[in-house]
């Protein structure tokens, strides 16, 4: 069970919980994950999270940062494949964990990447049935996110700033919005690197806890938790989580519209 959980911390004390590691959003390279962490202030052998799509300037700076701080990093969770290329080219001795937020939806895709990385995290837009099927066919253990306000959209635009400017409102960096037909509510957050739409409800994927995986990701960046150990203990014990959702676990999506005039 060692290192089974990777926890993205929120506004809480960085209190070590057994069988877990923190996954630190890296300052300057993570977006819309609340608190970020400078590499020089992290303990050696930390797991860091880079969830941005990086431009050429970012990637050049990141190459230098990672090369000069090898001892600081045990593993990197990343979305941009430029990070993988840096790790390969610089021969960085780190664990490579690929987390394509919406792009890891089949065992074929997972296995393709598993030829190059240590593990991948499955996307959250797939059903429990799909997850079980994928787990049967992957060549290495893979990871699952089991607690988070799920991210549904990532824009490079500063959508909250633009909205406030257009209507001459005071700018907010977090805003609750609702799609009136589906009644679906979102938390929109913005930072210097763009805008995210998160589910207002928190995803509870605890039914996946029995699966044999590399990591379970817990994203607490929107939570205020007094004691991390207590929180994790309650979470694992199955204590109910208010305002939660099972995400897509039971929600199969469709691709083609039914023909006009009915199915």
């Amino acid at each position: 069970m060692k290192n089974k959980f990777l926890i993205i911390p929120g506004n809480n004390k960085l209190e070590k919980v057994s069988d877990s590691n923190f996954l630190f959003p890296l300052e300057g390279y993570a977006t819309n994950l609340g608190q970020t962490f400078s590499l020089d202030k992290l303990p050696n052998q930390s797991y860091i999270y880079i969830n941005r799509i990086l431009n050429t300037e970012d990637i050049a700076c990141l190459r230098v940062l990672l090369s000069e701080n090898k001892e600081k990093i045990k593993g990197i969770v990343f979305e941009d494949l430029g990070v993988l290329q840096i790790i390969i080219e610089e021969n960085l001795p780190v664990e490579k964990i690929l987390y394509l937020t919406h792009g890891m939806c089949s065992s074929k895709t997972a296995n393709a990447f598993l030829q190059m990385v240590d593990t991948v995290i499955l996307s959250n837009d797939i059903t429990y049935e799909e997850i079980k099927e994928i787990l049967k066919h992957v060549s290495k253990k893979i990871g699952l996110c089991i607690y988070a306000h799920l991210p549904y959209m990532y824009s490079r635009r500063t959508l909250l700033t633009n909205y406030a400017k257009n209507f001459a409102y005071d700018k907010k960096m977090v805003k609750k919005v609702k799609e009136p037909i589906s009644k679906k509510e979102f938390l929109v957050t913005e930072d210097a690197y763009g805008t995210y739409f998160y589910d207002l409800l928190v995803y509870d994927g605890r039914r996946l806890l029995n699966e044999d995986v590399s990591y379970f990701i817990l994203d607490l960046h929107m939570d205020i938790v007094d004691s991390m150990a207590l929180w994790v203990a309650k979470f694992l014990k199955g204590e109910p989580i208010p305002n939660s959702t099972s995400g897509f676990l039971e929600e199969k999506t469709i691709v083609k519209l039914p023909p006009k005039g009915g199915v």
Partner: protein
Amino acid sequence: MIELLAPAGDMEKLKIAFHYGADAVYVGGEKYSLRANAKNFSLEELKDAVSYAHQLKKKLYVTVNIIFHEEDTAGLEEYLNSLALIKVDAVIVSDFWVVLLIEQKKIPLEVHLSTQASVLNDAAAMFYKSHGVKRLVLAREAKKEDIKKIKETTGLDLECFVHGAMCTSISGRCVLSNVVTKRDANRGGCAQVCRFIFSSDEEMPFSITSKDLNMVSNLEEMIKIGVNSFKVEGRMRGIYYIATVILAYRRMLDKIKNHSLTEEDEKYYTNILNRCANRESAPQFFNGLPTEKEQYFLGREEVSNQDFLGIVLDYDAKAKKVKLEQRNYFKVGDTVQFFGPNMETFSYQIHTIENENLEKIEVANHPNMIVYLPVDRPLEMFDMMRVKSFDK
């Protein structure tokens, strides 16, 4: 190599795109393509389309650009082999499994990486190059500095969107459609939720809709920094849109080649393009981060028009009479324009309309009705007649 790349949702659109000056088209097959609700091409139709393109010494690319779920994976290798057999010029791919499958199985297909993969830096570009990718369709978020650096580092062919609708999200990083409508955005079912209006705790509703992309004023610089393929968005668009947009960009690219593109030309084509799409447009990310000016906020700025009046079916040079298929209402007394790829656009006042039986009529008011107009200047099949909005 400079290429003008057009969308083609079906065979008619493909023919129009080539006729109006596209060097290549991209099309979707019946499976594995991100426009699941477009007509798309069967394998047999793809074979005919490739043959048609190659006869014209032009190219055809096939999108295989969904993110695969477990249920979609069966049959892909066979499909790719079929595409290789009919000699499509490239496949446009997003899911890395497809890239690796083609590389490791040595399937003789050129791979172009879809914009869905959102490549924005040279390291990611090198990753894909090392797996056999020949061309990158860069993320729409790419600034000119990113494009330049990627070109310098990789030497790969670079393809950039120059015109059409924009995702608000970084491509491939959005499942709002999945959440709100259960239609899977990354498998071709996108419901364009980024064009919906959201309610909020403030007086005005919240909207995230982007204006369209329009790179008219940046084409020359794009060529200089190494862009090879200039891509127009819109496989779901109609033939009038394709004809107008492709002709505009064809003319501008040719004028750049001849060092004759003027500011006046750019203004004219921008007007034509904006009117044709019924939407405003902007260069978006090329010169920096888009602001509130590159967005719509109330969602009602789109004004529908019926500019497309008819398509030329034939021209009788002896009688100086054009046979036209009507697409929108017009009448005697209207001033219209004819345009096409092998002529200068010209204005024309309608004095006479004849119906299919050569009887004089005052209005052409039935969709697809056949009419005849006396026109002195020669016209060709697929030339079009539109409402006159701008002088040229």
